[in-house]
């Protein structure tokens, strides 16, 4: 069950939309922030708020890259493997991340802090190779820089 305050603010968002389902992505994102991922319960709640069936919400949720229908760590690492990052040897960075975190792609670290997911171009091609951690973008990655970022991200919440 989501708290009343969150429910009220989501209801307001839906009410301000031109049609209720226009707010679908916002609602899913907010619920995901609350639960950490889009749980089955959250899908049900989104459906009620948006006046859709749970299946219709599912159809949307599974489409988007940034909506997680499985549990993820506290911070998701999206590491870019598209062409400009490939030119900048992202393969080395991805391998380094796997070794360092002790997980494969899609995996979550044992302490539940990080989930590692490859992603398509994030518009950081000029600063490739690039990744984002919990939504914060980082570019010009080297193994040393990756170490620093992971440590800082692990320590700040």
């Amino acid at each position: 069950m989501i708290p009343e305050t969150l429910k009220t603010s989501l209801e307001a968002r839906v009410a301000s939309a031109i049609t209720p389902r226009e707010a679908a992505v916002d609602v899913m994102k907010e619920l995901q922030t609350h639960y950490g991922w889009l749980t089955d319960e959250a899908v049900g709640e989104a459906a009620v708020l948006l006046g859709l069936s749970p299946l219709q919400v599912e159809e949307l949720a599974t489409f988007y890259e940034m909506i997680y229908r499985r549990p993820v760590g506290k911070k998701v690492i999206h590491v870019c493997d598209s062409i400009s990052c490939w030119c900048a040897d992202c393969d080395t960075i991805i391998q380094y991340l796997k070794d360092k975190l002790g997980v494969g792609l899609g995996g979550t670290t044992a302490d539940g802090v990080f989930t590692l997911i490859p992603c398509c171009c994030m518009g950081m091609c000029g600063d490739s190779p690039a990744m984002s951690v919990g939504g914060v973008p980082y570019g010009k990655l080297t193994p040393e820089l990756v170490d620093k970022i992971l440590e800082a991200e692990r320590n700040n919440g």
Partner: protein
Amino acid sequence: MELPLFRHNRPDRVVTFDEYREEGGFEALKKAFSGMSPDDVQQTVMDSGLRGRGGAGFATGRKWSFVPRDLPGPRWLICNCDEMEPGTYKDRVLLEHNPYSLIEGMTLACYALGVRHAFIFIRKGYEQAAANLARGIEEAKKAGLLGEHILGSEHAIELDLHLSAGRYICGEETALINALEGKRPNPRSKPPFPAVKGLWQGPTVVNNVETLANVPAIIANGAAWFKGLALNPEGAGSKLFCVSGSVKNRACVELPIGTTLGDIIDGACGGMRDGKKFKACIPGGASTQFLKPEHWTLPMDYDTVAKAGSRLGSGGVIVFDEGHCLVEATLNLINFFARESCGWCTPCREGLPYVKEILTRIENGRGEEDDITILREHVKYLNYTFCALAPGAMAPLDGLLRDFEDEVREHIVKKRCPLK
């Protein structure tokens, strides 16, 4: 000559509202509201020769003119900021430095099109750009340049941000419309075209960020001025080229349309990285064909690049050097498209993973001569899909087989990647 898009940029921060206004910002809006009819604005954009900067390069004024004038009910403008084409990062750079040209450009477009409510569809990951826009919209409203009674007139224009959750296909205009409506973002069949039946079945124009950001300068300085910015008579205006790959300075630069490929790489980007030799580049994002050393002096404008067998596309120039295996590069591009296929139609959903499998085999030294024929067939048949994603995916593969067939064959004959 002063180019319009990066004119207000500060080296390391976003320009402020006051700075933008002091440098002539919102003068175009005043000019339009005080003496130009919506038709005048539309005609000026038409005469300027501005072409859509999102990739397709369609004439902007013509696109606007497809909106029927007499249909009742609301009509819509959407700014497409769902930039997810690998190698393309111009919208991000533009908005992180200056959100106001887009805001002013959208207001002018709304005026020209009779739109009261417009959206900026912005991808996940562009949070800084979205924050800049949200602040800019508030400032413009407070200054009476947006919202009700713009500049004391009877005109009211609303600008809303729609933050997406990340998916390449949302950049396709009909998929984007579905996404904005909160539906699953598969492309819609055309016709009806969005200009007639788009968002919530109303007439809709979808334009790219860079396209709309050009509009204020066009209105302020006139169509002839804009045309004159280009280095060759085929072109009009400036273009943001975002260069990545094997160049010394990877940067997003604003240059006159018609600047040659060599001048972009050697001039604006300081030449090739580590003294490497230029092997090829993709000039306009992931869905364009390779250009080769013989194209070094090619003027980069829509028609000339098309004549050379590629596309100017989004202006995302990805540069490869002699050490890059182009089979692997193409495999990387196909992997992207296979992952981002929306899955709606079978040729794309099944065909792209199959192409990926074959290219992987070739790259790993397990390719067979037949594979080249099979790949060629895919280039041919994946042109018949529901939307342009699969044909776009086939462009670099087509280029690979056309220009670098020897390199592909070498993989097959030697049973390994010759560059590894």
